[in-house]
Structure formats: C-alpha cells, structure tokens
C-alpha cells in the first residue's frame, strides 16, 4: 500500500524528470537524461524509504545530500581521465572544464562529459529542494519555484523562444505533483458540510480526473492564448546595449554595423533558402586596407557579367552551394552572398571585383537602395578545410598581396608584443591563427559588449586588447586580422550576416545578425573564415586545431563528408546570431515569444506569490498543526493554536485565560450552536497541560476543523476570504513573539 509520503516522493521523481527535460535545448547530448533519471531516483528513494521508517526530515535531507554527493563523485570519477590526481582537485577541474565549455560553446552544446556531469548535479540538487518543498514543508505549490529554475536556465541562456515543449514539460511536472497532493489530501480528509459530518474517503481517481480536467485545458489554453498575443515581442527587458534608431542600411560597413546591431526592434532584414544543410554566412564586403584609422575598402576595378571568375587561391575542400535570397527593407549597395560567389542572378545593374569577389550595384543614383526588397540567387563555392590537413597549410599569396599582407609601420608596440606572446608556442601559421582565435575567443580574456567604443583604429584596438577587454564582433575580427597580418598571414575583415535562424525551409536573418569576421589567406584554400567572436558564433571546426593533429584517415573521412554537404561549419549546429542569441533548430519555428510571455508570467507570478505568501504560510501552518504528530502534547498545542489563529484571522478577540474561559468567549462570539467538539478540544488541552497523563490518543484535528468551520460560517464570504488571504494571526503572533523576546531581553538585562 502506498503511503502519502511515498506518493509525494514518486510525484517529485516524475515531476523532476519532466522538468529535467527542459534542459534538452541546451545540449545535443541526450544521455544526460539517463544519468539525471538515476540521480533523481536515488535521491527520491532515500526520501521515500527514510520517511517510511519515520526518519526525521533533517535526516532524510542529509541522506539525500550524501547520496547526491556519492553520485556526483562516482559520475565525476567515471568522466575523468585516469591520470591519478587527487579526487577533489580532479572534480574541481571537471567543474572548471564544464564552466569553460558552457561559457565558450553555444547552445546546443556538443557532447561533453563535464557539462553532462554538471547538469546532472544541478538536477540532483534541485530534486532535493523540490522534495523538501513537497514532503517536508508540505507546500507542493511551491515546487513551481525549483521547476521554473530549471526552465529559466535554457530560457536565459538561449534568450530566444524555447518553443512549447519545455513549457509543457514544466506544466506537466507541476500538474503531477499537485495532483498527487490532491490524492493525498482527499484520502486523509473529506468534509461534507451539507450533512455536517466528516468522513474519511479515498478517491484518487476522482482527483486524477479533476486534475486532468483542470490542468490540461489550462496548460493548452495558456499555450494557445500566448500564441494569440502578437504584440508582446516588443516588450523586451531593457538590454544593456544602446538603442540606435533610423533606417537599416549599410554604406560604410564598419560604422553602420554598431548601429544596426543596436536596433531596438530586431527586424528581419532578409530570408534565404539554400541547398546547404546548414545556414551560410552572407558576406557584403571585405575590408582589406588597414591603417591607424582602422580597416577600409580598397579601390576596386569592377567587372560586369553574372559569371564571375574563380576565387583566388581556392580549390581544396570546396563545394558548391546555391542560395536564393529575398531581401527585406535593408539598404546597401553590396549584394549579400556566401564567399566565394561564382555566379549570380539578380535584377538591376551589377558589377564585381575580381580580387575580393564583392558584388556591387553599378547604377548611378540611389545605389544604397540597390538591394532593397530584391529577390536574387547566388551560386557560391564554399571552402570547408579538412582540419588535419589544414593544420599544416602555408600562407598563400593573394592577387592583392601588396594590400592584404601590408603591416603598417605604426602598429602600436603593445599589439606587436601581445601577438608575439600569443603565438610563441605555435609551430605552423594555422596554429598561430588558431592560437590568436582562441586567445580572443576565451571569455576569461574578453567580454562581449556592444557598448564598447565603435571603430577599429589602432587606438581602439589597443584599448580593446589591453584596457577594456570588451567589445563586439568588429573588435574581435579587426584584432585577429591585424595580428595574423603581423604573423605574416594575409588577412582581411569581412562584413555581412550570420546564418540566422532556420524557420521551416527558409532562414531568417535579422538586423542583429550583422557580423564581422576575419578571413585569412592560405595556400590552396584561398580565403578561409575564422571566428574569434565566440560569444555569438562558434568557431568553425577547422580553426579548432591542435599541434597533435595529424592527418588520419577517419578524420579526413568525416571532413570529406562535411565538405560534401558544402557547409561552412561541418557541425550540425545552428550558427547563432550576433545578438548573442542562439536558437535550437526547429524549436523556435513558431516564432512565439515564449521568453517575453514567461517574463510577464514570472513578474505576475512573483507578484502573486508575494501577495499569496501570507495565505500560503498560514495554510502551511494549519496543515502542520493538524497533521499527525508523534508528540501528542504538541499536536494538542497545535490544534489550540489553530483555533486561536482562526479567531484572530476573523478579527475576533482571543482572550487570555484558561482554556475553559477562552472557550466560553469563543462560544459567545458564535450566534449559532458551536459544535460540542469545542469541549473535546478544551478537554484535551486541559489534559495536556494539567493532567498526570493524557489517557489515550488525542483526536484533535477533526474537532478543531469542525469548530473552525463553525466559526467561519458565522462570517460573510468576503470576511472569510479576507481571513484566509490576509491572515491577521500572522501579524499578531509576530507581534507577540517580538514582545516576548523583547521582554526576555529586558529581564536578562535587569538581572
């Protein structure tokens, strides 16, 4: 036979598992769910068995913590490489690994034992909290708090719509816990006011039906109503970035970048369809000239025609991809295209630069409107270097080598020194570039901030690299391009768009997806994209190279299959946007503003919780007082205190005096008949306080409930509601307690 505590324990188990599924958008690794199920089951079994054996709540929670710790230790030990450090330091390292990965990787994160370990640990800790709320404190409603904590992790980390799935999981989890609580309640006490009799009954099926009848439609209703609220999207929390205004356009690529990133409304600037498995980086322009003022466009000799010449230096690991783009309300003279475009089909007059393969409008007036609302298609050849072979690639000589290799004489010494320091351990040019990228991309070194001073001149660079250590994509890209050039690798800064988010067959690119990234020129590969701005986009696989990487068959096989898919990033991740938002594929397809809805729900819920806190506290007190207690004296005192607080809640006087005197006053305050159970209560109280022994088990909860019901029935609906929502007894009791404390203090001071 299941006991109430067993049912609560199992409910928390099931609820936690459902709630744990909300972390799924964070990682590609689904195996964490098995481990989470293990830790949840272990912790809750401890709770169930402990409570069955009558262990105190404290003992149960301590045992749970112990089990949690052991689980964490064993799981950590299994995850650790066997290199014989001491356990605590090794676990600490595991933790640091997990933190590092979480901070550098973007969701959904790739498989990592450290991250899995941390997630399971977190789920375990939250399980203990949930169990404490449900079983120890008997406040199952509050289980919403730990569940929401789990929900908030992906909600805050992704900053984008999570989709309906995690929301529904949380809802289901709460319904499970509440329904089981309903079963427990109904089995312990049923009161039939009509016949004024109290009967015990057990009707879990009724509770389940009721729970399903209320809970499931509410959940579905909440999701549907949310979808009908389109306007909420603009109600964003004030972001840390300054808000620009004005039309979206791109004349000088670097200057407009910051403004477009800071548009208050994150408008969709273009959508595209591609035969590529993943999204593509759409380049507008490449900045090849650098001087103390920053990166600039080089003068170009334009050619016309839609068939373009081959990309300089490319050939290895390249594949063809077709993209058809529908531009939105975005003004620029450059035609966004994946590098390196081979042909394009667009209306209007276009020309292209054979060195950089930028496509520009050649019409005479209103050139900046050339691409506005234009539909066009581009065929490009995308280079996806195979990492192992790429490691040993040598810097090439691009056609415009005189420009792209030039290091200005006035590069500040600070940058030169820093570059030498970063690359001193790297043996090959590619490893040097990777070292620069990982130095810039390490969140421990640099923070992402669109509030950093705009621009990419030397002053700004020095400030970014040595002082502020905070910036956005242009700073990272410009710094890496300059440093690579110092190390002898031809470089340029490309400006364009991140791949955006997938929405069905098409990809949406927003103004906040505007991006800048460095491209380095390697022999045989041509211009290769790097990604030091790890806060918004994950570095391509070929840039994450280590000295130990040797060409081996399996690696090249995976690289080959990656290049067959003609993707800029072989991993299946969605490339995130520059607004540091990253959406899981398919999850946000509805476009429904879950985060905003949730925020308002949270604010509303928080307010409601504050308002309801006294009522819930009072309810919890009542339950604790009237629930079974091993100490009969405590039970009786609790019942008596409950009567006292009921009177106080109803704004009635609770006199000082003996139980009988007080009972007489209570009786006088009730116009109708007070149930005789009041005498029973008084009798138990007197026995508890003054008799030699109790003579039997006190049955006080039911009489107290009857008297309470009689007292409540004397008042209007409004007074009753007020008594329950704003229980005056809490305030009075607090006052009494404070007075007593003060009094005692006074006495002790006197003595």
């Amino acid at each position: 036979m299941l006991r109430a505590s067993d049912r609560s324990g199992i409910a928390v188990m099931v609820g936690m598992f459902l709630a744990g599924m909300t972390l799924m958008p964070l990682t590609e690794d689904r195996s964490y769910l098995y481990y989470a199920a293990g830790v949840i089951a272990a912790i809750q079994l401890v709770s169930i068995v402990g409570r069955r054996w009558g262990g105190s709540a404290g003992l149960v929670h301590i045992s749970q913590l112990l089990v949690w710790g052991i689980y964490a230790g064993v799981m950590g030990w299994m995850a650790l490489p066997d290199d014989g450090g001491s356990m605590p330091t090794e676990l600490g390292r595991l933790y640091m690994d997990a933190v590092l990965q979480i901070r550098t990787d973007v969701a959904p994160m790739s498989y990592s034992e450290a991250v899995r370990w941390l997630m399971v640990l977190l789920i375990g800790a939250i399980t203990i909290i949930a169990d404490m709320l449900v079983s120890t404190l008997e406040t199952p409603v509050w289980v919403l708090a730990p569940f929401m904590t789990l929900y908030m992790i992906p909600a805050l980390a992704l900053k984008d719509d999570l989709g309906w799935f995690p929301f529904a999981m949380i809802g289901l989890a709460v319904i499970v816990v509440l329904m089981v609580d309903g079963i427990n309640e109904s089995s312990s006490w049923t009161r039939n006011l009509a016949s004024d009799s109290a009967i015990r009954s057990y009707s879990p099926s009724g509770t389940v039906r009721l729970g399903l009848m209320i809970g499931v439609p509410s959940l579905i209703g909440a999701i549907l109503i949310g979808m009908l609220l389109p306007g909420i999207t603009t109600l964003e929390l004030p972001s840390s970035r300054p808000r620009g205004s004005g039309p979206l356009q791109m004349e000088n690529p670097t200057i407009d970048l910051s403004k477009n990133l800071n548009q208050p409304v994150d408008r969709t600037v273009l959508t595209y369809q591609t035969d590529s498995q993943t999204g593509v980086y759409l380049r507008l322009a490449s900045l090849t000239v650098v001087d103390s003022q920053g990166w600039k466009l080089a003068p170009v000799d334009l050619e016309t025609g839609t068939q373009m010449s081959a990309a300089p230096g490319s050939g290895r690991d390249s594949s063809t991809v077709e993209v058809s783009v529908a531009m939105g309300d975005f003004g620029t003279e450059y035609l966004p295209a994946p590098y390196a475009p081979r042909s394009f089909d667009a209306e209007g007059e276009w020309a292209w630069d054979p060195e950089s393969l930028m496509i520009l409008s050649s019409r005479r007036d209103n050139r900046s409107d050339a691409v506005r609302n234009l539909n066009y298609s581009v065929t490009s050849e995308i280079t996806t270097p195979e990492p192992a072979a790429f490691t040993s690639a040598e810097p090439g000589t691009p056609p415009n080598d005189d420009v792209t290799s030039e290091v200005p004489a006035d590069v500040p010494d600070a940058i030169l020194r820093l570059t030498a320091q970063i690359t001193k351990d790297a043996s090959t040019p590619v490893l040097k570039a990777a070292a620069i990228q990982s130095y810039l991309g390490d969140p421990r070194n640099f923070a992402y901030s669109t509030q950093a001073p705009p621009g990419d001149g030397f002053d700004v660079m020095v400030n970014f690299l040595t002082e502020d250590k905070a910036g956005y994509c242009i700073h990272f890209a410009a710094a890496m391009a300059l440093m690579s050039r110092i190390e002898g690798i031809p470089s340029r800064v490309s400006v364009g768009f991140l791949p955006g988010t997938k929405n069905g067959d098409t990809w949406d690119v927003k103004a906040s997806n505007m991006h800048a990234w460095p491209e380095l020129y390697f022999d045989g590969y041509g211009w290769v994209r790097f990604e030091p701005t790890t806060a918004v986009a994950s570095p391509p696989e070929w840039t994450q190279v280590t000295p130990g990487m040797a060409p081996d068959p399996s690696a090249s096989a995976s690289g080959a299959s990656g290049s067959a898919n003609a993707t800029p990033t072989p991993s299946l991740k969605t490339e995130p946007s520059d607004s540091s938002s990253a959406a899981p594929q398919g999850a946000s397809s509805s476009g429904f503003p879950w985060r905003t809805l949730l925020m308002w729900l949270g604010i509303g819920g928080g307010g409601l919780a504050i308002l309801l806190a006294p009522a819930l506290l009072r309810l919890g007190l009542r339950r604790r007082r009237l629930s079974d207690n091993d100490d009969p004296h405590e039970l009786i005192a609790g019942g008596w205190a409950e009567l006292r607080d009921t009177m106080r809640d109803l704004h009635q006087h609770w006199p000082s005096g003996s139980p009988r005197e007080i009972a007489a006053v209570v009786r006088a305050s009730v116009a109708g008949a007070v149930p005789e159970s009041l005498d029973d209560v008084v009798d138990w109280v007197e026995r508890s306080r003054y008799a030699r022994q109790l003579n039997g088990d006190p049955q006080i909860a039911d009489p107290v409930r009857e008297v309470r019901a009689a007292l409540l029935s004397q008042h209007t609906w409004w007074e009753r509601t007020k008594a329950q929502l704003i229980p005056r007894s809490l305030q009075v009791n607090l006052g009494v307690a404070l007075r007593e404390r003060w009094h005692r203090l006074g006495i002790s001071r006197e003595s």
Partner: protein
Amino acid sequence: MTDVENQGQSVSDAPDLSEVVEVMGRVRGAMETVIEGKTDQINAALTVLLAEGHLLVEDVPGVGKTMLAKALGKSVDCSVNRLQFTPDLLPSDITGVSVFNQQTRDFEFKPGGIFANIVVGDEINRASPKTQSALLEAMAEGQVSSDGVTHSLAKPFMVIATQNPIEMEGTYPLPEAQRDRFMAKIEMGYPTRTAELDMLDHHGGADPLSVLQPVTDSQTLVRLTGIVKDVYAAPAVKEYIVSIVEASRATDSLRLGASPRASLHLLRAVRSRAAMAGRDYAIPDDVHALAVPVLSHRVLLSTQTQLSGRNVADVIAEVVAQVPLPDRR
C-alpha cells in the same frame, strides 16, 4: 449505603472519582431541598468538607447560615454539635472538662461541644477571645489535651462557624491569625426573588430539616477525603497558586497578603473541587473559582483601598487577573 461502601476501594495513582462525584451529588441534592438557590455556597461547603478544612460563613442574620451548617450535618450520617457562642461561653464548654467521679474515685473527661464530626459554631465572634482561641486551637490540632491526657477529635471533623458582620456591639472579631485557620469564608447573600417565593411555599409550615435524611456516612467521607488527596496538581497549577499568593503580598491594595498556609489551603481546596467535578487533575479554573473564598478572609485591605470603597473580593479578583495563566507544562 452499602453499595456506596463497595465502590472505589482502590486508590491508585489515577483515583476513581466516580464515587466522589456520586456521593457529593447526593449530599448536594439533599441540602438543596432545604436551602433554595444557594448552589455555589453549598458547593463551597462541600469542597471544604472534602478538603478537611473549616468553613467560616459570614452574613447578616436570617439568610440561612445556620441552616446551611445544619443541613450539611444532617445530610451526613454523623454526629453534629451546635455551639451558640455567647460572651459567657467558657473554653471548657468547647473542649470538655475533667470531673471527679465519686464512684470510680477518679477524674473522668466530660467531652465538650467540639467532640463531634460537624461542629456548628454560631456567632463565633460573640464569644470571648479565650473561648475563641480554645476552639481554634482544637481545630488546628485535631485533638484536645486535658489534664495531660490527649483526646483525639472525631473524623471527619469540620467546624462551620458563622459570624454576623453588622452588629459589632459586644463582639470580639477574630484576629487574623485565627481567621487564617479557616480554609474558606463564604457569604450567603440574599436569595433571589423566585428562590424566596419557593422557600415560602415549601417551608412555610414544618421545619424542613426534620424531614432531611442522611445520604452518606462518616466512614465514606473519610474514604473520599483520602481519594481527594490523590488528585493531581500539575507543577504549573502549583506555580499558579504560589504566583497568586505572592501577588497578594506584593499588591499595594492590600495591607496584609495571604499566608503560606493560604497556599496550602488553596491547593487542598483546588484538589477537592477538581475531584467533585470528576477530574483527577486540577486546572487553573479551580484556582480561579476558589481564590476569593479561600483568600478573602486572610488579607487586610490597605487604608486607601478601604477609603476608595472597594471590597476584598474585588481586590483578590484583580490580583488573580494580573497573574498570567500557566499555559505550558
């Protein structure tokens, strides 16, 4: 009578109180046939009887003081003596006297009026202090010494003394020390209108006492007093009693507070009252109910309180109200 004797022989730690309740109920019922509408006074008298104390009844003439005493005496099958205290009453009239018996040629003890289970001392304040003190000495000690021989008094033994507070001419008011020996003092008070009408109806002709039959006997009473001693008084209740007595000593309204003997008497009376209610434990309500009867004759009002016109009962009720109730074990 026999069935009463067969009940409740064992006195364990949880005394069987049904006999107490039943016997005292019968005595109360019998007395109420004689004295109409005086339940409180009857209860107080019975409480004192079970607590082995003595009772002082104070009120104006003709309200039934003596009737109460006599009714109690007649309800119990035991010896009852009535002593009318006058200024010329001698101590030997109370304690008894040794007289020379010519036939046995020896002194022989002639017991005085005090040798009875229930002694009704009418108008005790009219006797000379010497006589009064002889009575009170005997009351306190439960024995009489005469010519080196100690004579024990009967058991149960209860003195019910009456006094008249109005006619002070030619009286010798009891000193505090002697009043202290009475467990409780009650006032009869005038009957209600209906009670008085009933009285006229019922008692117009014959003497009601003449038809009153005893409903219990002295041995039963002795046994019941033994049971009462086993009623449990929780430490909280004892502390409450001591707190009240201490408060009576501390208050400005009283010139003289209650004595330690008052605490003892109050505790005994409280136990007795609890037993009569069928409880084997005392509660603060017992203390409340008995504080005024047990304490009021032992304290003296301060001059200021007297001038402000408050009476002793009010002051004691006030003192009791000031003492916080024991609500924890």
